[in-house]
């Protein structure tokens, strides 16, 4: 960032001071919590529904016919064009924002998990069949564990997506949130606050990603792969 004039983007050192002030005077935390509430509710819903849809679509023909096209269309249409629709359905409150994050998160979770399910070794499926596993046993013991590596990749995408998707949404009817703070800072040219925001996103991104990879490493400890 050295090549930037300090006016375009504040020097990191100044931003640290600003960040500390915002923290100390209690401004930052409520915004952070507000955003976190939205982001993680959306994340939770998106991950849950994404996995369920991936299971329905990956393991049943009728599920695939019903679900896959809809998800493909959803992800092809920019959020901008969805906002008016969702406002009609859910109003301009929190529900609308969480819904849009939920659908944004759903996309990579669905695509990755679905592909991972489709990529399960046929040998394991044959085994499940000959062992007479029930549908539920098959899902819990074979399909989900087999799709876990793909699911974790999508989770890594999702944990940052839920935050970045929020920036645009926190333009609509909100007085809280990091996105709101960033947008307001842009309106008034407060580059130090923008840099604080970038720092927050970067830290959140690195920490969430590291966390997911930690859980991943534990849950996939059985694997004998290049990355271990």
């Amino acid at each position, binding site marked *: 960032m050295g090549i930037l*004039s300090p*006016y*375009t983007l504040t020097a990191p050192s100044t931003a640290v001071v600003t960040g500390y002030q915002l923290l100390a005077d209690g401004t930052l935390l409520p915004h952070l919590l507000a955003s976190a509430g939205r982001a993680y509710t959306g994340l939770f819903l998106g991950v849950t529904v994404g996995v369920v849809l991936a299971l329905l679509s990956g393991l049943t023909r009728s599920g695939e016919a019903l679900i896959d096209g809809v998800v493909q269309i959803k992800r092809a249409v920019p959020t901008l064009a969805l*906002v*008016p629709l969702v*406002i*009609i359905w859910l*109003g*301009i409150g929190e529900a609308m924002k969480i819904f849009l994050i939920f659908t944004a998160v759903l996309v990579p979770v669905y695509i990755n998990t679905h592909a991972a399910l489709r990529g399960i070794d046929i040998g394991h499926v044959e085994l499940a069949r000959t062992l007479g596993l029930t549908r539920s046993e098959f899902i819990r013991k074979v399909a989900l564990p087999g799709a876990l590596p793909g699911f974790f990749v999508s989770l890594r995408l999702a944990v940052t997506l839920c935050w970045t998707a929020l920036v645009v949404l926190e*333009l*609509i*009817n*909100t*007085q809280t949130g990091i996105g*709101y703070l960033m*947008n*307001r800072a*842009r*309106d*008034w*040219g*407060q580059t130090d*606050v923008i840099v604080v925001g970038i720092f927050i996103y970067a830290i959140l991104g690195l920490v969430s990603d590291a966390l997911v990879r930690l859980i991943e490493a534990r849950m996939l400890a059985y694997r004998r792969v290049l990355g271990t």
Partner: protein
Amino acid sequence: ALTEDPDTTLAVADQSELVRNLLDASGEASKLGFKGSFPNFAGGPAILEAMRAGALDIAYVGDTPPIQARAAGTLLPIVGTFTRKVAQYRLTSRPGLVIHKLAELKGKKLSYVEGSGRQVFLIEALNRAGVSLKDVELVNLRVADLPDAIRSGAVDVAVLTEPHITRLVKQVGASPVLDPLERQILPSTSYFYARPEVLAEPGKAAAIGSFLGAFARAAKWANANRQAWAKYYYTDFQRITPDDTAAIIAGESPLEMQTAAEAIPHHQKLIDILYQAGSLKERFDAQTSFVDTYDSIVSAER
């Protein structure tokens, strides 16, 4: 004639949280005779979408959104108008370029934010200078990117507001257009428009009256207590440095509420400018965009 009900709810779309702060700072917020909410938005299009969805009752918007809504086939009647004589917009040139006469805009790269008040301001500036739209290079940009476009010299002239103008002048040597005519191009006008269904509901219609009254009083307070208002809103709430706040206040003329009759001519002018620029397919009659229901309240309270 209109009776207020304290249980009536009124959703007023806000921008930059100006309305809410003005009511708070002036003490009017606590006296509202209804349950008001002030959802904050960024820009007219999102407000129009929320209006059409029925999520809002009235909205604080800039000068072009009512025209755009009407062009889209949704007539949202204007219930209140307020204006500042001297525009908050300024034509600002990039570092290394000083423009002394509006006529010098000819052949320049000009920022163009389609469908916004800045577009109208620019067109009118060119009209005043006798320069045709064809004789300049228009660069579509988002409002948020304008300061950086000037800073990096990506455009020659942009329509900016404070505190960016003062800041760019100080930091990189940008310059406002020096032509005195530039300060007379257009006033800054904003509107409250309403969903037609709301006007037909007696309770809400009464609440709107009460709100407009409160807003007029709040505006009067802000005009009379410029420093207090500036500190409350710009310095404390928006966290703008005292220097920048001073810059904003310095160029700002007082907030004036207008009745429909007073507001119609200017609104017609806006329509005409947009029509001339080709942004409107048909030339509306400004008269039919207004309702005069609240003129008495405005006249009494301003």
